[in-house]
C-alpha cells in the first residue's frame, strides 16, 4: 500500500504562494491513487522552477537540460518500458526550447506523461516572456509588450491528434490530481498543461485571474469527438476549459517495436548465436 509519506516531504526553493506547491501536492496524490511505488517511477525534467519539482519527492529522477526532457524520457521508456515515466517542466522548457521534441513526442505517442507547469512567464530567469505569454504582456525584456502571438499547446496537440490532451489548474488540486492519474493510466503520450500562477513575475495571470476563468468541461462532453475537441481547444479568454479535452486510442510508440513485446531492453545479454549468423552474411 503506497501512502503519501512514501513520496516524502522536502523543503523547496520556490517562492511562498507559488503554484508549484499545489501541483506537487496533486502529483503526490495521483501517484498514491495510482498505487505506483517510488522506485517504479522515473521523473524527467529540464531547467526552470518547475523542473526542480522532482527533487522534492522520492522517486527516480533525471533532471537534464533545458528543453530536452522529452527525448531523455523517450529513451528511458524505450530502455525499460516497465517504468512509469513522467516529464515535469515548464512552458519555456517544453514549448520554447524543446518545441521540436514536443511535436515529435506527440507524433511518436510515447507512453510518457508530460506535465507542463504553464505560468506564462519565465520565473527562474526573473520575468521574461514565455511562449505562452499573451501578446502585449509587458516585461523588462519586452518593455513595449510581447510582440508575438502566444502558443496554444492544447490547440496544437489536438490538431496533431495527440492521444491524451488535458488542461488543469493549480488552484483545483483534486481535479488536477485526477487528471494526472488518468494521464499516468493512459497508454500513450499524455499532455497535461497546468495553469499555474507565478506570484513573483506574472501580475496579470494571477490566481484570481485563472480562478475566475477556469471552468470544468460538462460531464456530457465527449473527449473522443475530435471536431468538438478542436473547438474547445481554441477557447481561451473569458472562459478557459479545464479537463480532458481530447483522447484517442492510438498504439503507443513502444507497441511498434517487436523487440519490446516481452521484456525490456535493460538486462539482456548479447545473442551470440544470432550475431554469428548475421556475421556469416558478410562472407
Amino acid at each position, binding site marked *: 500500500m503506497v501512502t503519501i509519506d512514501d513520496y516524502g516531504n522536502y523543503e523547496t526553493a520556490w517562492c511562498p504562494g507559488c503554484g508549484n506547491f499545489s501541483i506537487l501536492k496533486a502529483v503526490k496524490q495521483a501517484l498514491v491513487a495510482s498505487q505506483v511505488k517510488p522506485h517504479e517511477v522515473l521523473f524527467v525534467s529540464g531547467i526552470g522552477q518547475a523542473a526542480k519539482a522532482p527533487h522534492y519527492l522520492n522517486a527516480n529522477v*533525471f533532471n537534464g537540460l533545458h528543453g530536452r526532457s522529452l527525448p*531523455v524520457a523517450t529513451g528511458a521508456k524505450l530502455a525499460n518500458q516497465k517504468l512509469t515515466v513522467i516529464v515535469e517542466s515548464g512552458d519555456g522548457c517544453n514549448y520554447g526550447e524543446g518545441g521540436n521534441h514536443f511535436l515529435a513526442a506527440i507524433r511518436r505517442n510515447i507512453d510518457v506523461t508530460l506535465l507542463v507547469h504553464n505560468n506564462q512567464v519565465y520565473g527562474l530567469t526573473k520575468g521574461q516572456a514565455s511562449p505562452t505569454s499573451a501578446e502585449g504582456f509587458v516585461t523588462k525584456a519586452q518593455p513595449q509588450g510581447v510582440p508575438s502571438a502566444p502558443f496554444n499547446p492544447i490547440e496544437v496537440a489536438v490538431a496533431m491528434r495527440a492521444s491524451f490532451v488535458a488542461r488543469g489548474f493549480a488552484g483545483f488540486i483534486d481535479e488536477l490530481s485526477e487528471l494526472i492519474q488518468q494521464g499516468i493510466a493512459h497508454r500513450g503520450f499524455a499532455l497535461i498543461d497546468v495553469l499555474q500562477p507565478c506570484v513573483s513575475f506574472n501580475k496579470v495571470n494571477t490566481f484570481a485571474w485563472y480562478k475566475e476563468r477556469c471552468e470544468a468541461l460538462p460531464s456530457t462532453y465527449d473527449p473522443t469527438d475530435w471536431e468538438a475537441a478542436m473547438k474547445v481547444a481554441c477557447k481561451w479568454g473569458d472562459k478557459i476549459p479545464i479537463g480532458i479535452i481530447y483522447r484517442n486510442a492510438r498504439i503507443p510508440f513502444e507497441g511498434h517495436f517487436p523487440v519490446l513485446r516481452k521484456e525490456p*531492453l535493460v538486462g539482456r545479454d548479447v545473442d551470440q548465436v544470432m550475431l554469428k549468423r548475421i556475421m556469416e552474411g558478410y562472407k
Partner: protein
Amino acid sequence: MILNILIGGEAGQGLVTLGQILAKGLVRSGYSIVVTQGYQSRIRGGHNTFAIRVSTGEVIAPQESVDFLVALDKDTINLHRTDLSPKHLIVCDEGFGTDGDSFLKVPFKELAQERFSNIVALGVVASLLGLNEALMARTVDDFFGKKDERLAAENHRALAAATRWAGTRPTSGHKLAAVSDPPQRFMMNGNEAIALGAVSAGLRFHSFYPMTPSTSIGLTLAGHAKTMGLIVEQAEDEIAAINMAIGASFAGASSMVATSGGGFALMGEGVSLAAMTETPVVVVVAQRPAPATGLPTRTEQGDLEFVLHSGHGEFPRAIFAPGTIEECFHLTRSALELAERYQGPMFLLTDQFLADSYRAVMPFEVEKLSPASAGTELAGVKAYKRFAITESGISPRLLPGVTKQLVVADSDEHTEDGHITEDLSVRRQMVEKRLRKGEGIQAEVIPPDMEGETNADLLMVSWGSSKGSVKEAARVMNSQGEKIATLHFSQVWPLVPGQFMSHLESARHVVCVEGNAFGQLARLIRRETGFHIKKKILRYDGLPITPEYIFRELSH
C-alpha cells in the same frame, strides 16, 4: 600483382551495385581489397566512382593511378585520362567512339538488355581478372536474393554472355594469379564494422539523425535491430538523438549515436550532460570536410580538436580513431566498454573514406564483453548514492526501476545522492571525483603503433584512416633503401607522452601526415609534450591520403 580498378559513371547506372558484387567476388576468390568511393565534385554533378584496389597479397591503402578503368559513361574516360597507369585497360561501350590498343569495347546492347548492362560489365571485368564464373553467379544471386527467379535467370544469362564474349578477346594481362584454398573472410566497410562491433559489445539503443557519411551505421543497425534485440530510432534532430541515447543509457540500455561534424555541433550540450550525469554514451563522428556543410560526400580529418574540446566544462574522455576495418570493430567495443566502466561520453572518430571503404577482413571473434557492473542491488545499502565519492571516481551504478533503490541524477552540480546543490565544497569534491576517472582512462590508453627502426631518418606520424597509406608509403621507400618509420595513433586522446616521446626524439626527422589544414595532431602533441613537429604533410582537398600523395609531398 596489385591492380586498381576504377568504375566510373553517373548516379543511377548501378555503379555501386557493380562495385560491391565485384569486390565481393574478389574477396571470395581470396584477394585482398581496399575500396574508395567518391564523387568527383570538381566536375558537373553526377559522376560517381567506385575504386577497388586488389592484390593477391596484402593491400592496405588506396591508389590514385588506375590500371583498369570501367567507364559506364563517356565522361569517365575524359575525367580519368590523366590517372591511367602505363599498363592500363579501358573497358567501355563500343559506341563511345574512342580508339586505341588500351580500349576494350564491349557490345553491351548485343550481350543483354540495357538494364543488365552493369551485370555485363561485371562479367567482362570478372572474366578478364580470371574470376570463376560460377562463383560470380553465386555472388550475384546473394546480392539480389533468389526470390525473383526470372531476375536471377536474366542475371545469369547476362553474366554468361559477357563471360563468353570476354573469353574470345585477346588476353589483356590483367588476370590475377589464383589464390589456392582462400580463407573465408568478411567483406565489410568501416560503418558496418562499427555497427557490428557495437552490437557485439551489447549495444541496445541507437538514435541518429541522417547525415553523410555516418548514416549507414544507423542503417546497418536498423537492419539487425529485430534479430539482435535493439532499438534504432531516427530522432527529430541531433539534439534529440543524443538526449534519447542518454535517457536510454540512464535506464540501462547501452547506447551510441552517430553523426558528422555539423550534427555533432548540435550534440555538444548533450555531451556535457552525459559527463555531468555520468551516463555512458558513445558518439561516433564520421568526419567530412567543413566548415558548415562543406563537402558533404568527401573525406577529411578536420574535427580532432573539435571533438576533443566539445561540451562545455571539464571532464575526462577518450577518443579513438580507427585506422582499419578491424579497428573500427574493436575500438567501437573499447569505446562502449570504457563508456560503461567510466560512466561518461566516449568518442570514435572516423571519416568518409574509412566509412565507405570495403575491405576483406578475417572473421571477428564475437566473444562477450565482460558484463556491465550496472543494475545489481548493492548489499546492505539503505539509501543509494548515485554519485558516491570514491577513490577511482567511479560510483557504483544502479539503474532506475531495476532495484528498490532510487536513482537520482542532475545536470546541475549535485550531492552524492544526485540532488541539486549550491554547496561549493561539494562542487569541489565532485569536480575532483569526475576528473579522477580520467586517471583510470589514461592508464588504459592504447599505445601508438610504431613500425620500423627507432633511429630512422624519417618518422611519419599519423592518426585514424590514413594508417594504411602511411605504412605502405614507408614500406615502399624502405624497399628502395631508405630508413623510414611510422608512428600511428588509433587512440588520439588522452595522449601519454611516455608511450611515444622516445620515438619522436630518436628519429632524425619527423613529419606529421594528416587529412586537415592545421596539422591538428601535431598541434596536440606540441601542446601536451612541447615537441614541435615542424614538417607536415597535409591534405584538405576532400580526398583520402594515398601513398602517392605522400611521395609527391616528400619530393617537394
